[in-house]
């Protein structure tokens, strides 16, 4: 058995920041007769290139395995030191950084003797981790340079166009007969007032002409197998069905306009329309009614749907101005709780509507407007919060602006792709900085499927999703460790010791990413981890009764030994 002394310890003086407080020499002496340490050195400011080069040189000469560096925190200069050494050919699993500056010296300045003792313990804990940790085995899968885009709305079309332009084979699958999604239902696109066809023209042209893009009309997805890099998606068009393979999937299934059932006497009185019906009339031709009232936030921003659908206000402004444009003498008023038109274009759009004579009346959620009339709507009474008086508006037509709501289970996509929905039914995305990535690697999302958006925002999200998908499928193969969707690599990939696993399924149920599955291994049920899906969070490790599933980078022995060495 070769001698166990394989670790080189490097203590950084850090321009005196560390060495002034703790006694590095005593640490060095204690380290030299540590059963694991072959040599201990004190160096200065390892973060400088020259010193780093010198250090990596001595490491390479000594040829022994592992290096422990006691210096500043990773967030300070620690990471750059580690990255520097890695670039100089030292395997990351052989490196361990012990944070003795921020973690010990700077927070115990007034107790140097105690700080030295603590530094010794921290170095021992670092050694416990260093001699035991490994790098998870990285598996790679070949990538198909193909992307499936589900839904040919503005988002899907934009994604398809940009991906096609990048030379990636695209399969654009549209459930309906014609592309365009919800834009087909509307007369003009807010806020730039162009027709839906002109808005989508460049993308439709790209879809037709670009040979890379194959378009499947009135086709829906029957099933999805496989993982990132090689999804096998079976499409169903009427009876004929066939399977295509793709490296990534972009979900652009959009949302659906909500019908205001049972609100404001909808369907009870003639003249009370939903916003979609108004769009149909506007598309057909000029509207006869002269006195029109729009009511905003119908069935939105309330207990059931605590969200603002972001498109109703701009759409109502557009329709109101269109009506005023046809009949300048028409009285158009918008009853609203708040007009939400973020951004300069929409703000300008709002002011233009005011200039065009559209009246705006604000009401409170507690007492909404009341519609009166026998079979045809006659008046709308509303308590105007600005003036504090009850207003009565004679109206011929009432338009109810309802929010966009999520498709119930996005036509089974949720189950097939094992995506997760938030409690409002929209697809859940990674929080904070990753709007177009879902919890499942290789599956992206854009447009109203993620959140109600206007057409131009849907298009930008489509292109964003296309770019992210392109980053994924552009390489030859994908490494599981690289799939962390964030900067850098995954911390680890869980590994199951199949002998010890009793097949209880705790890990399968708790994994936030459904990365663990139970399979039969010669008769007994055992758990296996899908390296692509696992993000290395370790949630499964905490519930495994006998510790069969572990993170190789920090397994139970490392933590156990760190606990044992923590207060020697």
């Amino acid at each position: 058995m070769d001698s166990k002394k394989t670790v080189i310890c490097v203590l950084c003086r850090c321009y005196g920041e560390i060495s002034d407080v703790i006694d590095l020499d005593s640490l060095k002496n204690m380290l030299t007769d540590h059963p694991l340490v072959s040599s201990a050195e004190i160096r200065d400011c390892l973060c400088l290139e020259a010193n780093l080069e010198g250090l990596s040189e001595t490491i390479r000469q000594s040829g022994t395995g592992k290096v422990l560096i006691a210096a500043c925190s990773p967030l300070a200069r620690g990471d750059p030191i580690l990255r520097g050494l890695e670039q100089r050919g030292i395997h990351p699993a052989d490196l361990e950084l012990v944070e003795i500056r921020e973690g010990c010296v700077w927070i115990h300045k007034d107790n140097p003797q105690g700080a030295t003792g603590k530094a010794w313990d921290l170095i021992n804990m670092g050694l416990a981790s260093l001699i035991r940790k490994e790098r998870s085995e990285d598996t790679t899968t070949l990538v198909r340079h193909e992307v499936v885009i589900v839904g040919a709305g503005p988002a899907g079309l934009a994604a398809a166009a940009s991906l096609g332009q990048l030379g990636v084979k695209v399969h654009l699958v549209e459930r309906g007969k014609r592309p365009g999604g919800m834009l087909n239902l509307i007369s003009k696109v807010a806020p730039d007032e162009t027709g839906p066809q002109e808005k989508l023209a460049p993308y439709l042209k790209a879809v037709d002409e670009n040979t890379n893009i194959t378009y499947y009309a009135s086709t829906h997805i029957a099933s999805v197998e496989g993982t990132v890099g090689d999804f096998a998606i079976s499409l169903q068009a009427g009876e004929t069905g066939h399977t295509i393979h793709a490296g990534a999937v972009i979900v652009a299934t959009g949302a659906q306009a909500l019908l205001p059932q049972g609100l404001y006497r909808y369907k009870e009185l003639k003249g009370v329309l939903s916003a979609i019906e108004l769009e149909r009339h506007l598309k057909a031709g000029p509207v006869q009614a002269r006195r029109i009232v729009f009511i905003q936030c119908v069935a939105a921003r309330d207990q059931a749907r605590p969200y603002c659908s972001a498109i109703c206000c701009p759409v109502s402004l557009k329709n109101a101005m269109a009506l005023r444009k046809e009949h300048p003498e028409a009285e158009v008023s918008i009853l609203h709780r708040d007009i939400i038109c973020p951004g300069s274009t929409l703000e300008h759009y709002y002011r233009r509507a005011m200039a065009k004579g559209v009246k705006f009346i604000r009401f409170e959620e507690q007492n909404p407007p009341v519609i009166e009339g026998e079979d045809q709507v006659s008046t709308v009474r509303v308590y105007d919060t600005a003036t504090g008086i009850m207003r009565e508006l004679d109206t011929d037509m009432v338009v109810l602006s309802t929010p966009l709501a999520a498709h119930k289970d996005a036509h089974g996509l949720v189950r097939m792709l094992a995506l997760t929905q938030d409690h409002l039914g929209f697809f859940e995305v990674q929080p904070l900085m990753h709007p177009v990535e879902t919890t499942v690697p290789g599956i992206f999302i854009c447009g109203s499927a993620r959140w109600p958006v206007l057409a131009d925002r849907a298009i930008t999200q489509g292109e964003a999703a296309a770019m992210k998908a392109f980053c994924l499928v552009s390489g030859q193969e994908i490494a599981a460790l690289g799939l962390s969707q964030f900067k850098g690599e995954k911390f680890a990939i869980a590994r199951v010791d199949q002998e010890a696993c009793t097949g209880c399924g705790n890990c399968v149920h708790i994994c936030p990413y459904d990365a663990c599955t139970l399979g039969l291994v010669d008769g007994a049920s055992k758990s296996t981890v899908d390296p692509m899906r696992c993000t290395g969070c370790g949630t499964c490790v905490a519930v495994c009764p006998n510790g069969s599933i572990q993170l190789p980078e920090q397994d139970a022995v490392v933590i156990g030994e760190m606990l044992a060495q923590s207060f020697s």
Partner: protein
Amino acid sequence: MARCWRNRFRDAWCDMSNRVSNEIKGNTKKTGRGPKAIIFACRWCALIGADGAGKNRVQLPLNFRVIPVECAARVEPDSIIRAFSYGIDGVGVLGCHLGGCRYHNANHRALKRLDLLRKLLDTVGIGSGRLLTSFGTAHEYHQFAAILNEFFQGLREFPPIDEWARAQMTDAGKG
């Protein structure tokens, strides 16, 4: 073959901690310098708080050691119990706020589990005051420092946990 962590032939150095009988391990570790604590800090928030406390030179009690973990949900309850059995007086698990977990609601599981563990610690008299859990209030340096100081304040009221292991009997035997 996946290396099984239950590697029977772990090198001698790893066994060092175990050779001394538990009873001795209790008092050789008695540093007599007040309560000892292990803090499992989630790498995405609490560790940044701890790092911030370092950068701002906030003076903290000496007897705590931080073990960085990928997520608060990764901390095995058995590690917490093993820490208590090693004579460590307090264990902290600091994670991200609900809904803000980088690993998609993994911290919910940690939250529930630690509530349940608190029940067990209260039952046997170790006291749930020894288990510090904070979700989402430790990523700023001043928050981290405040939580740690308050935790140590609480720990000072508890008797050292070694005493639990060697608690004398009610009618203490003489000799």
